[in-house]
């Protein structure tokens, strides 16, 4: 991730916290080589971080796990911090999350520990122009590609644009973060081996609560609850997508996320919607979650509405609301 010393526009990492990575919307067209999709775990928070800065929808940001991130501005730049609630300061002075922030050269941005949720997104005007692999800047650590690791102290993160935004700072409307405070109920689209599961087990899946376990990373979150009594046996390995919920022999579901493997042999009763993958990814170990059946078209509509809102709304002059074009 280290860039030559000559880059003087952007941020210098002082402390990255644990497992902070650069992510955009993930890679396309490479899964048949066995490469994961990657990409931000929480589409909503990362989307708002970019929207606050009028960035390209696919602009790369820093995905910070549990907070504890500090960086110095190498130049004047504009940033935003969204996601799990944390104390954020610039040169020790408290600032708000979910808004655009101007940094002057030498300013130190510090993001404290995440409260209640897991992931914090830091975006910069123009996006972070770090190294890309196969057309995406997303870092999938477990693949061990050259230079694709978590952020380290002294890493330089070049910003894509030096231009400051015009007008007053932007402040995200409450809809940007209110969803995060709702009880985590995850939309599940029936699919794959749905019909091979016992009706009682399918009922259990949507009527009991599951606890997010400690074994949770960008590949997937293990969930613990009343185990399924009789999950189907292993299947011939088939292509899988992030969001798929696989149930191994112990009957405890594993929700696959952005860095998941491309094929797998466990049976799957359904797939979590892309938006709710973010809601799950934000939950801390020990949190109770619930599933609720939904259907493909509803899931697609929910996702499209979010994308349309991103592309087809503009900030009001006071920077406090958005209007459809």
């Amino acid at each position, binding site marked *: 991730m280290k860039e030559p010393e000559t880059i003087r526009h952007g941020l210098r990492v002082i402390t990255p916290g644990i497992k902070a990575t650069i992510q955009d919307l993930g890679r396309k067209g490479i899964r*048949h080589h*066995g490469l994961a999709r990657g990409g931000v775990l929480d589409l909503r928070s990362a989307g708002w971080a970019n929207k606050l800065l009028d960035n390209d929808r696919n602009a790369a940001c820093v995905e910070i796990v549990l907070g504890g991130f500090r960086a110095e501005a190498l130049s004047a730049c504009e940033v935003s911090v969204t996601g799990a609630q944390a104390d954020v300061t610039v040169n020790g002075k408290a600032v708000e999350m979910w808004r655009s922030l101007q940094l002057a050269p030498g300013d130190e941005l510090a993001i404290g520990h995440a409260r209640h949720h897991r992931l914090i997104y830091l975006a910069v005007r123009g996006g972070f122009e770090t190294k890309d692999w196969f057309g995406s800047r997303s870092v999938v650590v477990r693949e061990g590609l050259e230079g694709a690791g978590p952020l380290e102290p002294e890493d330089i993160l070049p910003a894509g644009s030096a231009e400051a935004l015009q007008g007053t700072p932007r402040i995200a409307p409450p809809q940007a973060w209110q969803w995060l405070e709702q009880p985590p109920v995850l939309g599940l689209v029936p699919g*794959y081996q749905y019909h091979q599961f016992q009706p009682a087990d399918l009922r259990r899946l949507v009527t009991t609560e599951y606890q997010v376990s400690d074994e949770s990373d960008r590949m997937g979150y293990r969930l613990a609850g009343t185990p399924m009594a009789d999950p189907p046996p292993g299947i*011939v390995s*088939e292509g899988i997508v992030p969001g798929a919920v696989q149930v191994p022999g112990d009957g405890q579901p594993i929700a696959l996320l952005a860095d998941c493997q491309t094929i797998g042999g466990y049976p799957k009763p359904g797939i979590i919607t892309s938006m709710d993958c973010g809601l799950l990814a934000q939950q801390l170990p020990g949190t109770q979650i619930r599933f609720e059946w939904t259907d493909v*078209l509803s899931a697609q509509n929910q996702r499209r509405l979010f994308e349309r809102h991103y592309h087809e709304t503009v900030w009001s002059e006071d920077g406090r609301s958005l209007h459809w074009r």
Partner: protein
Amino acid sequence: MIEAAGEDALLIRFGDAIDSALPAQIAELCQRIEALELPWLVDLVPSYTTLLVIYDPITINVLDAKARLRPLLSETPSADQTKAEAADSRLIELPVYYSEETGPDLAWIAEQKGLSVQQVIDRHTADTYQVYAIGFAPGFGFMGQVDPSIACPRKDTPRTKVPAGSVGIANQQTAVYPKTSPGGWQLIGRCPTVLFDEENLSLLKAGDRVRFVSISREEYLAQGGQL
């Protein structure tokens, strides 16, 4: 059969059991889908009996994507036709240095199966294998079917570190580990060929055929093999 697999993928099933006729049939459908240059197509992930079609749900909805692909399925050639075509599919030769120093499970398999080490090598190199799927790790090709006389289960406890290039057997499957990684397959040798790099990506693709060729220690080293 074509069904939704979540909001951005369709899963096409060609059968329920592993069948050596399927990889060519699936690869052929991939080619025909690619030829259409569909702007909403994101990726095609073939596996043993299925093809996962990943699409952009913002550009097209599930019903239209299904409708676009369904006619291609009815045109799918019969198994006999694809068997004939499979003869033309790409054949890749992978050199392997089979030895105690590169294949720590070679002697164990021989002993379990009541064969000599040379017989195990001969049987592994005698067959031409189908590449059924790429997965587990970048460039990792699942190949089969291994002669039942040398098929053996995975190790009870996977190794934490399998060296890059290691050739392994798990049941009736065989594969080469493209990179050093954890793994539970029984190791019989090592291949010096680069199976994955960032420029060319995976050397193998689903539908290819592979033949292993036994090479000496000297040849292995000369071809860039590491010990």
